[in-house]
């Protein structure tokens, strides 16, 4: 376990870059799917990937080097200075629930659209226009 910690401290800049980079990559991949994919389900998947990226960014921002999870336990009552910031984690929990609801609603709308237009290709669904 100590070896792992040493390794972690040695490459901490790299790991920070990796976490933030992953979050931003996820957001960009999701945006790519939402903007350029034609299939409705793929667009919904893109929305979920964007959400995941934003959530990862939140958790990464709240992280403090060498800290524990923000949980008070017996014998550990004064550990607050050694904890990661709990607020972003609470926000992410809320955001995950909201993201879940939106995804479920989006998929039900996709089913409705498919029944109405008999296609899931967004280019062929364009009865509403200026």
């Amino acid at each position, binding site marked *: 376990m100590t070896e792992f910690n040493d390794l972690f401290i040695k490459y901490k800049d790299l790991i920070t870059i990796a976490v933030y980079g992953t979050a931003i990559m996820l957001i960009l991949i999701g945006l790519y799917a939402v903007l350029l994919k034609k299939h409705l389900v793929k667009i919904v998947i893109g929305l979920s990937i964007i959400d995941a990226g*934003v959530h990862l960014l939140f958790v990464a921002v709240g992280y403090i080097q060498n800290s524990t999870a923000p949980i008070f336990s017996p014998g550990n009552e004064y550990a607050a200075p050694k904890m990661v910031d709990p607020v972003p984690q609470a926000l992410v929990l809320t955001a995950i629930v909201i993201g879940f609801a939106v995804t479920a609603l989006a998929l039900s*709308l996709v089913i409705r659209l498919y029944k109405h237009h008999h296609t899931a290709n967004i280019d062929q*669904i364009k009865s509403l226009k*200026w």
Partner: protein
Amino acid sequence: MVISPVHYIVAPLLAAFAIPLLTKLYKDAARLVPGIVLFYNVVISFELMQQVLKNGIINEVIAGWKPPWGINLVLTPFTAFLTTMVSVLGFTIWLYGFRFKRTLKGGVVKYYEILQMMMIAGSIGVIITGDLFNMFVFIEIVGITAYSLTAFYRERNGAEAGFKYLLIGSLASTFLLLAILIIYTQTGTLNMAQIAERMGSVPQSMKITALIFFLIALGIEAEMFPLNAWAPDAYEQAPSPTSATFAAVVSIAGVYALVRVLFTLFDVSGVHNYLIVMGFITMLVAEIAAITQKNLKRMLAYSSIGQVGLVLIAFGIGSKLAVFGAIFLMLNHAVIKSLLFMTGSYFIYNSDDKRLVGLNGMHKQLPYVSALFSLAAFAIVGFPPFSGFWSKFYILISASNQKMMYLIIGILLVTIIELVYYLRAVGRIYFAKEEMDDVAHKPSLNALVAMSFLALFIIIVGIYPDIITGYLSDAASSLLDKMHYVQQILGSK
């Protein structure tokens, strides 16, 4: 019983989730319960507004966690005025839609009533919350209910409009989360008063980035150009009472969120000019699009976007008189546009033709509804004896005080466009000749009461605006007095 702002949110949410159970006991509960709850909201909103005006800002602490740490609900004269307005209109729209689709099979009405009530509760939540992340949650409640209501009709093309709205709405929520994240990393708090206090020490670059994300995210909710492509489809495809709610409640909440963030959180110079420019483009594009529409509800939707553009212009001018005019216009827009959607839906209902051609000769079929529609059309363009005149008048005066002559010319030119398409609609009702069948759907009594109430309000405020200007003036000064807001929230520890 002690009345507190929490009731605004708790009562509708409790009722919404109790309705499926209550309908098992009594079949009409789905239609009656929302009315009782919304009426209760009206009563407490009047009571709380009196308290706010007498004793100053109400700062409601939730669960004993004091403001910088916990979530707080804030009633300033501005938010108290908006909640009163939203509650009254919510109740009126319920009254209008009381007999709505009661013939639909399978208890579908139940879902409509639940979603409608939650949409109004969510909008009130956006207005009264004092916490940035809490505002995001309420915006999502409004969003999810609005997407579902847009896709309410299975036989119409609602799903397409709903999906479009959902796509744009979830991108907006992503941007809003990113903006909140930036604010949180820079100030270490989510309480709006504390953010306002600490905003001075935030680097300019971070401020601008967060501001841009906020403008994108809330601009979508507030129907600001070029982020408003969802609006006409959603307004057109949604059930008519819901279209009225979009105009009267949801867009008001969106504009409020934008204004609260720009006026209280940020002190970036130049954002006012941005509001004026974007507001003007919003208004111009929307009114030009409205004049080309052949569908009545789409025309009203574009007109709605145009009104929001004018509200943004007035907030952008930023003097006290302009903010006063902006809040007045928000009130007028909510009342008049609801009346237009309410009356307009009866024309559509009776003609099988959703296009403007369907209006031809309607005054013979529906004389009273036609008169109310014409009254609302004249009021929204701003003819003198009606309330719409005063809001536009105050905005123009404030623009002339700031020596913005081009803006005045622009607003008046756009008003001419507005006049053209509203007069065209009214002209079709009264002067176009058309062979007509008998009336198939006479307006029901509750709808007539709701519409007459709104029309009466337009006329009374138009003739005697002093009954409302006192509240508006308090609201405007409370929005502009940022230091007072911060002290009242953080000082009451």
